[in-house]
């Protein structure tokens, strides 16, 4: 290269940032604070209307929009949970820095502002989404002594946990009368339904590292694809916004009835730009509770022990500066357990055992792209599960071992199109693999999908209405095992008022459940075989409800929703030509009403919550006359949950009550086989004290206060009265 050209190129390179920075352009900078508290607000989107210029505020509330050509602009400040503010006529001159400090007002003042990320695949206020959503904060007092996910979810309207009894036994979820395989369970947005069975055993999901849980009731295949007929449960682990920096941690030890002991610890640290967190839990329980057998004899539930270990680690960092800062996060989870598998009490297995191992790895990248109006979310995930079931007491000796592996990648972009319109779109690819170690049978399923959801907040002024939210969504799934599917859904929310907010919401959509590996490829023997020609189960649902949020009683909240779900081509294992095999034969109609109520007679000191679900789930297949129009098994008609939480200085307590009506256990509804209704009362008491940077919490919990003997599943006894005491030391 000639000597004269090299310095010239070097000069251009050195000057390039200056040239590209738009020398002579202006900028708008300032600080954003909350009007109520004065606290700085981070992650506020600030942009110039009609341009692609913008910024996001940092955690100290500061922001700066660079490279603004001279002229007059309208500056818009937008953040979820706060009223959008517009400043028209902001004049920027050449080379000038305009200072614009802003205070933002929360959109609602009198009640909780739960934010959901599950119902629209982006952060949205629960009050703005048409879907029926519950957001559970796992730090809430009532969940302090929960040992697994099933114990937390059981008090939500529309949810019925099929608890086989005891800590070690299987717990699966039914949402709006669905089966467990018709509910998608996500861990940080990643599906963890077992591709072999389609289900998730909630007893194997500890609450380690979990920050909140979102439950979206009603079909959602339009966003999450297969299996979201009943709804979606999203388990969200702690994010870096939770930490203040430095070293934090906690140790919690719990002792409980039936020889139960658990030890949990968490560590959080911030080292330069790195957020590190880790947590672990060890649980051991003998599980030897007493129960009354079917003939009135008192017996001890033997072989119901569990020993489990859970580990969770997270590493997060921010790369780059300013608007295009990239947030990168790696998470790892490990679960390992061994438990007795006594099965039913008739027959009773004294030596049957189960082993489970699960590993999960997740990489998540969040970043603005193009401008502050577009946010990228890129997730890569891996999940494996190994399970073994051993039983030498059954007629057919069993020593089954299965491995499933799931890996995938998903890209999602969330774009603000207008002040009133946001579009989220993306696609993903996923591989599901299963290996049966006994038969060496291996199966692989490949799937790809595209989805889009549009959130539109239209200022409609009809019949006193303030706002109309229109949320259409659509997903297309391609799959190697069954025909491709379009899943549409539309949701509407009509809002009247602001402080006295009355909302009318409605949803309608199509959904489906994919046949599992077991359904398709169960190895053929003399009695059974899978059916590779199965089609997915189809669901068509709609719901309509009213939501009231009034500024009385320190935030009065009431929601009532009527829902209907029509299921067809349901996969049922039945005898065909002498072999048991799955067929698309059954149809069902599920309808009901979910009601929930919440208010605080004494602000921050006394909160009352209640919900009631009426559900009528019936078989509508006329080809089986004895079962036609009969109530589906294990679908209670009535479920009531009531809780009262009180706090006085450092003491808090919760009383909760649950009523579940009769459940049929056979398809023809033989009354004598049905399970009696049950009512349960639980009580918790806790004490918190702080010393310097330490916080000590003692929590006691009496579960099933009146020692009620009941069964959720036929021949599966549930423990009677159970106490738990925990001690937590936390360093802030």
């Amino acid at each position: 290269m000639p000597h004269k050209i090299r310095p010239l190129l070097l000069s251009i390179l050195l000057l390039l940032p200056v040239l590209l920075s738009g020398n002579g352009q202006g900028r708008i900078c300032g600080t954003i604070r909350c009007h109520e508290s004065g606290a700085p607000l981070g992650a506020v989107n600030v942009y110039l209307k009609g341009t692609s210029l913008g910024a996001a505020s940092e955690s100290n509330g500061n922001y700066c929009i660079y490279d603004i050509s001279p002229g007059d602009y309208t500056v818009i400040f937008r953040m979820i949970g706060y009223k959008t503010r517009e400043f028209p006529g902001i004049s920027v001159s050449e080379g000038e820095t305009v200072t614009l400090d802003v205070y933002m007002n929360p959109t609602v003042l009198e009640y909780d502002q739960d934010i959901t990320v599950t119902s629209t695949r982006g952060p949205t206020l629960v009050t703005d989404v048409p879907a029926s959503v519950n957001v559970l904060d796992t730090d809430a007092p009532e969940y302090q002594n929960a040992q697994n996910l099933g114990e937390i979810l059981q008090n939500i309207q529309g949810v019925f946990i099929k608890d086989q009894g005891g800590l070690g036994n299987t717990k699966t979820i039914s949402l709006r009368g669905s089966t467990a395989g018709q509910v998608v369970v996500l861990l940080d947005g990643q599906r963890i339904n077992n591709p072999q069975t389609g289900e998730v055993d909630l007893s194997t999901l500890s609450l380690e590292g979990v920050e909140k849980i979102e439950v979206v009731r009603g079909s959602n295949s339009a966003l999450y694809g297969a299996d979201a007929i009943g709804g979606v449960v999203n388990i969200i682990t702690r994010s870096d916004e939770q930490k203040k920096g430095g070293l934090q941690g906690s140790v919690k030890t719990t002792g409980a009835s039936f020889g139960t002991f658990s030890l949990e610890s968490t560590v959080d640290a911030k080292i330069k730009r790195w957020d590190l967190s880790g947590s672990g839990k060890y649980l051991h329980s003998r599980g030897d509770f007493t129960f009354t057998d079917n003939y009135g004899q008192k017996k001890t539930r033997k072989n119901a022990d569990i020993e489990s270990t859970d580990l969770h680690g997270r590493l997060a960092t921010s790369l780059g500066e300013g608007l295009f800062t990239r947030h990168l996060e790696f998470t790892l989870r490990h679960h390992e357990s061994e438990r007795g598998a006594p099965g039913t009490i008739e027959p009773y297995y004294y030596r049957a055992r189960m082993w489970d191992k699960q590993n999960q790895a997740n990489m998540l990248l969040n970043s603005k792209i193009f401008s502050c109006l577009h946010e990228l979310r890129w997730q890569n995930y891996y999940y494996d599960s190994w399970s073994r079931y051993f039983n030498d007491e059954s007629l057919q000796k069993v020593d089954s071992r299965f491995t499933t592996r799931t890996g995938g990648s998903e890209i999602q972009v969330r774009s603000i199109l207008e002040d009133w319109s946001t579009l989220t779109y993306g696609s993903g690819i996923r591989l599901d693999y299963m290996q049966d170690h006994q038969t060496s049978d291996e199966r692989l399923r490949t799937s790809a999908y595209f989805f889009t959801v549009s959130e539109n907040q239209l200022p409609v002024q009809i019949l006193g209405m303030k706002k109309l939210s229109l949320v259409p969504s659509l997903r297309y799934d391609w799959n190697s095992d069954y025909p491709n599917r379009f899943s549409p859904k539309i949701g509407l929310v009509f809002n009247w008022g602001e402080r006295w907010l009355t909302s009318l919401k409605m949803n309608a959509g199509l959904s489906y459940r994919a046949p599992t590996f077991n359904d398709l490829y169960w190895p053929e023997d003399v009695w059974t075989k899978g059916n590779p020609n199965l089609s997915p189960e189809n669901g068509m649902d709609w719901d309509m409800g009213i939501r009231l949020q009034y500024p009385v009683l320190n935030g009065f909240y009431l929601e009532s929703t009527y829902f209907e779900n029509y299921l067809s081509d349901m996969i049922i294992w039945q005898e065909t030509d002498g072999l048991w095999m799955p067929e698309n034969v059954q149809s069902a109609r599920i309808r009901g009403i979910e009601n929930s109520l919440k208010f605080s007679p004494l602000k921050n000191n006394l909160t009352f919550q209640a919900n009631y679900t009426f559900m009528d789930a019936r078989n509508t297949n006329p080809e089986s006359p004895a079962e036609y129009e009969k109530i589906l098994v294990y679908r209670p008609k009535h479920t009531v949950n009531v809780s009262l939480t009180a706090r006085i200085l450092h003491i808090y307590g919760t009383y909760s009550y649950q009523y579940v009506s009769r459940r049929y256990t056979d398809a023809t509804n033989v009354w004598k086989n049905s399970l009696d209704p049950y009512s349960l009362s639980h009580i918790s008491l806790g004490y918190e004290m702080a010393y310097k940077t330490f916080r000590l919490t003692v929590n006691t919990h009496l579960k099933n206060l009146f020692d009620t003997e009941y069964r959720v599943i036929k021949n599966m006894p549930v423990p009677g009265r159970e106490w738990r005491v925990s001690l937590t030391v936390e360093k802030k």
Partner: protein
Amino acid sequence: MNQKVWVLCVAVLFTAFGFWGCEDDPTGSDTPETSSAIYVLNSAATSISVIDLEADTVYNNVATVGTWPNQLVYHDEKLYCVNSGSNNIMIFDVDTWEAETPIALGDGKNPMNMAFYNDRYAFVTCSMSNQVLKVDMQEKTVATEITAGTGATGIAISGDKVYVSNTGYVGWDQPYEQGTVTVVNATNGEVIKTIDVGTNPQSIAIASDGKLHVSCTGDYGANPGVASVIDPATDTVVETVEIGGAPGMIATDLVNELAYLSVWGMGCMVYSTTDYTILNDSENMFLGKGGSGILVDTEGYVWVSVWDDDQVVKVNSTGTVLKTYNVGDSPMSLAQRIY
């Protein structure tokens, strides 16, 4: 309306929902009063239906049974149900439908079928423990545990001898062992002899000439079903009826001297118990449906359970359907109340 009043109304309404939970048995408590009946074991409903032959009426779900019920046996005004999963025998008074305390047979037995030796003792086959149990029905205890063969299932009693069919099933991925029938002395519980029969022997019935007919299902592959005929005088197989298919249960018609072998979901195969002529084979099924349970009543009518349709069909010996009864979910074993 004032907003607070509205709030209060909603709260009151909400509370009222909680009282909707009261439910009553919609099926009522009707029980049949009859001295002539066919009892039907509904396996999926785990219940008993009664076909009242006097009133020609069906009473469904008059009683519930245990886990994995397998067989109903009527004896001396009582109905006995063998529950494989519950490992017990339930006893019902067929007039009041009161249930007595079940007879516990012990964990890990998997009882399949029973037969009465006399009013005091019955014998019960146990397929998992490979035993036949001599049960004292008065004391409700197991008197003697007798080792039979692998997968002890079918049972019949002829004179003082108990005949137990052993399927030889050892696992779905293993070939069947030699099918056998164990002959036990009913009085002292000693095993007299083990007789080799066809593959996978399931059920035993006694014909009018006293011979024992054993339905052998075969292995669903190279070895199709046969019926092995045992002469109790010599305890040897005197005839093998190569009927084919995969027969399950067997019932003998003492009036017309026929044997009916049920084939699950497909009907029955029929042969003569006198000259072993095959009247209906697997290509030419009698009835053409059902077969989860079969009984030939004292008048020679054939009763067949149709699992898929939740029905029991009454047929004459020529195959004409005389009546169809809607019973409970997934009917299986049948028993007759003899008046």
